[in-house]
């Protein structure tokens, strides 16, 4: 229920499980009426505006083992409750995955990074004001996208289908570019790629990701491959707080002057982190020179379909891809 004069949560009971299994049991018991709490910077907002009014909130912070950062020869394992601030300050992340470090450091503000978790940043809900506000949009269960013909300056230029919200996460494009995977703890344990984590509206308009109710995203694994360079660049209207108007996470490996492996992923321009395979194809197997970079930048925007007020995102994407590849070429 949207109320202008409401900004405290409806009463709930905070449950404090000691293990992931206990958390899952609690979630199963209160299936339709519970929410998982991690850092809380998104959930508390939704609870306070009573966009969500669960009777039970299951606190993941009381579960040991979800907040860690472990580096092995092959990968970095990051507990889902590791804060963005910890990632930002981690020397290993800075050294091995500069793209992830850059993404973490560009989220919101220092205060939010001190509580906001990596898992929460990946799984945060749509920021579309039509969805969060009193409109009864597709994603909220209605029959139309009010942004499509309303104020859509910040909406999708790729992949819109009934819903034109954008993926708000900064860490998602960075992790996708690094081909990270996530471990989902549920009735069965699953490990899926970050790329497969997100659900486009064409498939299911009511969810943003594939972590089902009653499941917990427990860990993020980032492969460490020798020679991989990564970066993340974000355009936002303000340099603090703001979500990305457009962002790019990119990673590649150059061998013998030729790009052997590349991932280019855009944030803030599609309902999911948008892997630009068209741009990747222009780079793969080629020397990373100005010509290659320019054709990749052009390819990245070829499929863009702007709405009435967001065409400006197209040159931003072009510039982002160019800047990211130029940085990685150096």
């Amino acid at each position, binding site marked *: 229920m949207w109320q202008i*004069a409401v900004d405290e949560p409806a009463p*709930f009971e905070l449950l404090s499980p000691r293990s992931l299994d206990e958390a899952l049991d609690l979630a199963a018991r209160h299936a339709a009426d519970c929410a998982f709490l991690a850092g809380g910077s998104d959930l508390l907002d939704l609870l306070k505006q009573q966009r969500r009014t669960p009777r039970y909130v299951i*606190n993941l912070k009381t579960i040991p083992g979800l907040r860690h950062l472990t580096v092995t020869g092959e990968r970095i394992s990051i507990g889902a409750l590791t804060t963005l601030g910890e990632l930002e300050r981690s020397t290993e992340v800075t050294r091995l995955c500069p793209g992830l470090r850059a993404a973490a450091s560009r989220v919101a503000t220092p205060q939010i990074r*001190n509580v906001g978790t990596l898992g929460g940043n990946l799984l945060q809900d749509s920021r579309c004001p039509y969805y969060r506000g009193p*409109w009864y949009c597709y994603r909220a269960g*209605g029959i139309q996208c009010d942004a499509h013909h309303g*104020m859509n300056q910040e909406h999708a230029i790729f992949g819109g289908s009934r819903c034109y919200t954008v993926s708000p996460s900064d860490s998602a494009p960075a992790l996708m570019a690094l081909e990270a995977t996530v471990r989902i703890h549920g009735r069965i344990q699953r490990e899926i790629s970050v790329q497969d984590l997100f659900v486009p509206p064409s498939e299911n308009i009511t969810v943003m990701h594939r972590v089902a109710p009653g499941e917990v995203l427990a860990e993020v694994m980032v492969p460490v491959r020798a020679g991989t360079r990564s970066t993340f660049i974000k355009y936002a209207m*303000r340099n*603090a707080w703001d979500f990305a108007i457009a962002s790019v996470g990119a990673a590649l490996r150059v061998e013998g002057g030729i790009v052997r492996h590349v991932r280019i992923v855009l944030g803030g321009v599609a309902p999911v982190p948008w892997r630009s395979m068209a741009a990747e194809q222009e780079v793969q197997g080629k020397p990373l020179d100005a010509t290659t970079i320019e054709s990749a930048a052009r390819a990245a925007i070829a499929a863009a379909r702007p709405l009435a007020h967001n065409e400006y995102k197209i040159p*931003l994407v072009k510039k982002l891809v160019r800047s990211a590849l130029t940085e990685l070429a150096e």
Partner: protein
Amino acid sequence: MDNQGPTVTRDLASRLEHAAEPSDPTRRSFIQASAGIVVGAAALVGARRELRQLGATTPARDDYAPTYADIELRVNGRQHAVRVPHQRTLLLALREDLGLTGTKKSCNLGQCGACTVLVDGQPVYSCLLLALDARGHDITTIEGIGQDGRLHPIQEGFVRHMGSQCGHCTPGMIMSGVALLREKPQPTLEDVRLALSGNLCRCGNYRNEIAGVLYAAGCEPSATIGAAAAQIVTCGEAESTPELAARIVGNTEGAAAKGLRSTIPVLDARNKATGEARFAGDVGFHPDDQLPGLLHAKVVRSPYALADVEDIDDSVARSLPGYRGMVTFRDVPGYRSVTDANERSPIRSDRLFMNSRARYVGDAVAAIAADDEYTAQRALDLIRVVYDVREAFPDAERNLRDAVRAIHDGTVAGFAGPQPANTPTIEYRRGSIAQGFADADIIVEGRYVTPIQCHAPIEPHAVVVAWQGDTVTFWDSQQSVFSAQEMLAGALGLNRENVRVISHYVGGGFGGKCTDTLGKTLYQGIAALLARKTGRPVRLEYTLKELLFAEDTRNPFVFYLRTGVKKDGTITALECKAIARTGGYASSGPAVVSVAGQGMVATYRIPNYWYHGYCVYTSSPVGGEMRGFGHPQAVFARETHIDEVADAIGMDPLEFRRRNSLHTGDLIDTDVVPNVPLMNIGAEPCLRAGAEAIGWSSWQHHSTKSGAIRRGIGVRFSQEHSGRNASNGLVWMDPSGTIHVPIGSGNLGTNAHTGIALIVATALGVPVEELDCTWGDSATCTWDFVSDASRAVHCHGKAMYNAAIDLKRQLHARRAAPAEPRTDFTPLFDPKTDINPYLDENTGQVVKNPPPRLHEQTEALARKIVAEGGLVGLGFYVWNPSAESWGASFAEVEVDMETGRVSVLKLVGAHDCGRVIHVPAAQAQIDGGSIMGLGYTMTEELLIDPHTGIPVTQSLYEYRPPTVLDLPELIPILVEAPVEAGPFGAKGLGENPMFNAGAAVANAIYNATGVRMREIPYTWPRVHDELKRAGKLA
């Protein structure tokens, strides 16, 4: 026009959720959704019902009983046992349960930083952390950083470097600094900026906040952040009159020697730096001022842009434990007829503080009170309101064209109420524009558009009300305690002496907390009705959404400008048609439209002009008073337009302004009287100093620019009044010899109180530290008109100056011979400058020869002081319209021609404030105005959904006030062109800097790109689309 929608019942008790319904039956989205089907009104009605059923599938909670926990919190090294409901945030636990009100509550959603505390040494937003989750951690608040009664070094730095303007962001800001220094004792400037980037300061005092932190780290801020102290330019001196103006200094060294140009810590610097400053929202929680039985109020606000309330029913809520009652529009004194309701005031108000017809989303229709905030929120859900939803009319130009009368009985808001569409709210004319345009070589035309700006102060409006018999006390966030007292008395049908308004600290006003007409929101009245009905004290505090759009905003305007000019640069005529959206109510809109008109025509020598302004009703957020009051809109339009005029004749835009500028002695028209001669104006020095700072000599025509990244510079130039209306002055000495200065101006963050104290101290020749200064209480302070319109230091300061001189004379006389207690309460004034015609806001009439008499409240206060053996000095001043302040600003921008991104690199503000009384405060007005103006120009806009009239901008994430990381290099220049009317020559300064960005940025963008952009803000999408339209996108 009167096409009524169907009756919609919002019945939450029966689990129906309707807020998602579209309010506009012609909503385009639905028609698109029914592609291929021709739908008429009947079909749409059916569709609305269907939507409602869909809405009803959302499950509603029936079990809302909170679960409690007994927890221990370790705060500032001490264990506290506290019982909290599970959903309680750490912020509320600290403030309301532990009484630690130094941590401030503002947006309550992690979007401002005011509630920052340290958890295990790291800064976090306590509003986004559950109290239960803070168990087992070390929590540090502003109350816990000093040691043994000594301030923390950052607190010292904030005191020394004026780290606080309003002070509401201060505790959070300091906590972020403390965390930084613990981790990095020797931070760089960049470290400090990043550390403070999660703390908004709406006063725009970032320079001094950074300085405060750097001071604590042992760095000298001036060396580190550059341009730390404003350049001061002095030009000319006021003529002295033998009696009073002997005090006006003869030269600048004298000014400094006499205590002006001071840099002392402001009067309440320490209270703000320690968090001891208590704001209205803190009242009732601090251990020192608890109010037993305090209730929490919530306002029932319309989710529809235009709807008539047919019924309101709280029968379900009444069964809720802790629910204490409801008041509705029917309880508003004078309800039934808008005209009857305001019979106490000859100016009719079209708005009551709750209304039977909701005229914008957020309009108040009822309110409830309950024991705590959770019960109050639950009760809000249980109130059943039956709305008859009508078609929304959000577009002012369309409403004017179609003569829409669906909102009020008239299309245009006039000073005397709604009036027909063909009647402008205000007109100003001089000469003959027909002749002027006939004489012109070239005529330039343009249409200019400005957005809705929100005040968005860090402190949301809050009031606590308590009745004692027939008298009522309001602890309010209030700029103007005396006008609030008068308006609330009028609105509630009370005698003024039975109403007391207290507001010692205001967490940012900007015009949004100035209850000076019956047309304002008067939320305090709602709380008062609830308090009277329940017999208990009641607190009401805005949420962020209420703050953004239920409260008044800055009116958006469309200007049609037409200027005739000769090839030699002489302006021959100017015509301006202004159309302002006033929203659902007039509020201050008509006055804003008239002040915009004065701003439009009062900077240049224009022999023929015609300004006609229309303040148009729209079913959108209400426009009203905000810093600059119509001028930011008008100055953006005029100064962008004037640049086009200069361009049309091929003249350097700075030279064009210089050539047409008004001079000292020229005549201007004001809303009070026509043909007012200008007193000493610093126009030319502002232009000269500013041009030098931006490097204007390197200005090049846009045709010389090329490349993907282009730079340009632009200029803006204009005047601004130094106030309005009358002020009283009162300074007194008690039998022990202590001098008391009960300041009448509000403490809204400008630190004007320090300026006024310095004026009194200098006039008396005593150190300011020896004065007992108080403020913010209608029962004990000197009556002053209001604290807005750039008037505190100039108007109230002059009256207090006169009072100080009056006291000094009596002291001299007593030294010569013993004297009887004072029986004549005629105040002191300078007949040459201090008695001027003024506009009586209650009658709408100009008082041509005001009697130099004290307001009855000041006289009563003076009589009381004398009766108790005190010696009282009394002063009087009515704003002299000849005293105008001037400002010029210069911007340098960089435009990315590929994307349309505009970066403002440098912003120079050169301002003639007559005389600098307190340097940091004056400089902070320039910085703060520049930053607020930068937001207005670049990012801030309250967007309204065109189909439903509901604001799309619902949080600061979308609204985007500038953070410390979003600032250009700011160069403040203070120009002194003293006027004999002002205290020591001082003029107003609060508003002119608000115009600094606007047109200067617009003209710089033009200079860089050759594309004229006539609508702000220059968001990325807008600039991109403009460049594309012009074929200039790379």
